[in-house]
């Protein structure tokens, strides 16, 4: 097997383990930092892959990953936390921590099953199993938490998974790529506004929304 592919798998499973770690953590600051580490690891991989293959596309990907998701977004999210960042934590997860850890694992396995049923015959390597698993784990993180930032991190994990897909499959046309990056940045900015508003409003009262039942 190509050595770069081995590193890809190594990275992929480390990312999966990091998502499990995020699922374990209840303190928001730890979640953000873990995500940042995961993004930097991915950026490092893209850097190496770009240098080996000498493709500007992958180097751009490395740069974008490091700057946007390793540095800027985590920083932005930490800023949206209140002054005493270490206090900020998930009060009432939707699912218990132990069961959500197992749930995340089950989703990773489901990802592998989906891959092996639907895609394996058409692939020369097994690389694509990792991003599918990671994507489902990200989705599960969104479902299993009620903390806004944890949910946003879940979305960003899905996005990281998408970039890992981007490495396996041929590059998309530039205009599409640019549109995607702009959209994602927009989503994060809008989310930032909503997070601010939401944290403010949650301070005032209970977080049970009877109006949104049913």
């Amino acid at each position: 097997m190509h050595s770069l592919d081995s590193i890809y798998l190594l990275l992929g499973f480390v990312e999966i383990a990091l998502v499990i770690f995020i699922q374990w953590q209840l303190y928001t600051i730890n979640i953000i930092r873990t995500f940042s580490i995961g993004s930097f690891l991915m950026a490092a991989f893209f850097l190496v892959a770009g240098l080996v293959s000498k493709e500007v596309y992958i180097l751009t990907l490395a740069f974008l990953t490091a700057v946007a998701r390793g540095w800027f977004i985590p920083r932005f999210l930490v800023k949206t936390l209140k002054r005493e960042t270490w206090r900020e934590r998930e009060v009432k997860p939707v699912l218990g921590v132990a069961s959500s850890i197992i749930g995340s694992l089950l989703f990773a396995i489901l990802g592998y099953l989906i891959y092996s049923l639907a895609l394996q015959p058409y692939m020369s390597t097994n690389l694509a199993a990792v991003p599918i698993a990671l994507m489902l784990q990200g989705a599960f993180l969104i479902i299993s938490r009620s903390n806004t930032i944890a949910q946003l991190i879940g979305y960003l994990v899905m996005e990281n998974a998408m970039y890992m897909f981007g490495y396996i499959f041929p590059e998309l046309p530039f205009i599409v790529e640019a549109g995607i990056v702009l959209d994602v940045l927009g989503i994060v900015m809008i989310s930032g506004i909503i997070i601010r508003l939401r944290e403010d409003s949650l301070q005032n009262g209970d977080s049970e929304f009877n109006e949104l039942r049913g």
Partner: protein
Amino acid sequence: MEWIYILPVLITGGASLLCILPFLKFEEDISVAASILALASSIYVATLPDHVNAFMHVDGLSKIFLIMISAIYVGVVIFSIDYIAHIENKLFQMNFYFFLLNLFVLTMLFTVIVDNIGLMWVGVEATTLASALLIATENEEAAIEATWRYIIIVSAGLVVSLIATIFIYAGTGTLSLSKLLAAHPTSQIVAVGAILAVVGYGTKAGIFPMHTWLPDAHGRAPAPVSAIFSAVLLPVALFSIVRIIGAAPILGVQDFAFWLGFLSVAIASLMTFSQRQYKRLFAYSSIENMGIALIGISVGGYGFVGAIVIIVAHAFAKSATFLLSGNVLAAYKTPFISEVKGAYKKIPLTAYLFSIGALAVTGAPPFGSFLGELLILAQVLKSFGIVWTVVLSTFIVIAFLGVNYRVARMVFSEGSSGSESDGDADHVKSPVAVAAINLALALLTTFALPVIYKML
């Protein structure tokens, strides 16, 4: 003369720019003018022949959507002027509201004319961006919570459809819609991509199992925003599914879409019975309608025509209903069904139109939605046999009863607060007129069937 096809997009783009400029104070007038111009140019485009080049793909379906979006746009802008001005504690100023509204329409118009499934994705995702803050126009906890759920669930769903786009690109080497429609790729990787696309765009269209954001967003958004969401945003997401299934008409994908649509209809029709708020009730009715439309898209043939008819009729009827629900909310100051009584005395015009609208959105004859449902059921009977057709019809009837029973209770029950038409909300004639026109258009859809059929 190619630019003429992007005229509606240009007009709304210009309007949103003018709205955000701080020194201009005519955002209402600009928006009304823009919407009417956009409608006029859309109708003009519809008379022109189909046009396909490297960037655009304007065919009959695009034209129907262009007209539908612009028509709803006109009504919503006119209704918004008064309604939004009366909201206390707004999240932002009026001009920013109109800026977002115009931008929102722009992204939808853009989505239906591009010839690139990657850019189509960008367009659908941009609708999320432009519309998210609109839900939170009323700056209160539940609205912000609903906005958040909308953003996170829809974005997560759209990541799935982005993967789908990448898969289709990997399987075919092109993103061009016209090339895909000509080639009809059937490889397995494209099939997987198409299934993921159905799931991803289905999230945005309120298709089971990722429909949960929809009642929250529709329930909490101001009436005009609910109207434009339900009437055209959901169909634009379905439009993407139409394109993907049209490009890759693979049997497994169509079956998958059918069952998702079926489950949406089933869940939504059962959920109508447990609703306590009228806007959420209509939100579930939207899910049901989108489910039926998805079934129609998946079975093809007459079912597809039926799906388009239902989408158009539902757009007009549902926008009217949501606009009227804004009037009800203004008159009674409560979102709960049980607290609205005797509306026919208090706000007669609104109340009667409201009950007609409820009939229209649930597929009562002679409205277009009835015709659409008939066409779809006929095709389902042909493809899936009598049993599933009967089950599906049962769910449709359940939804009909669930919605209309409650609306009838709201309108015709003897109210305790029986003050004769205090006219506080009803005196505003223009919103009622907008709703009436939209309902008339929903009725007209029935007679427009030959035109729609010809355009497809």
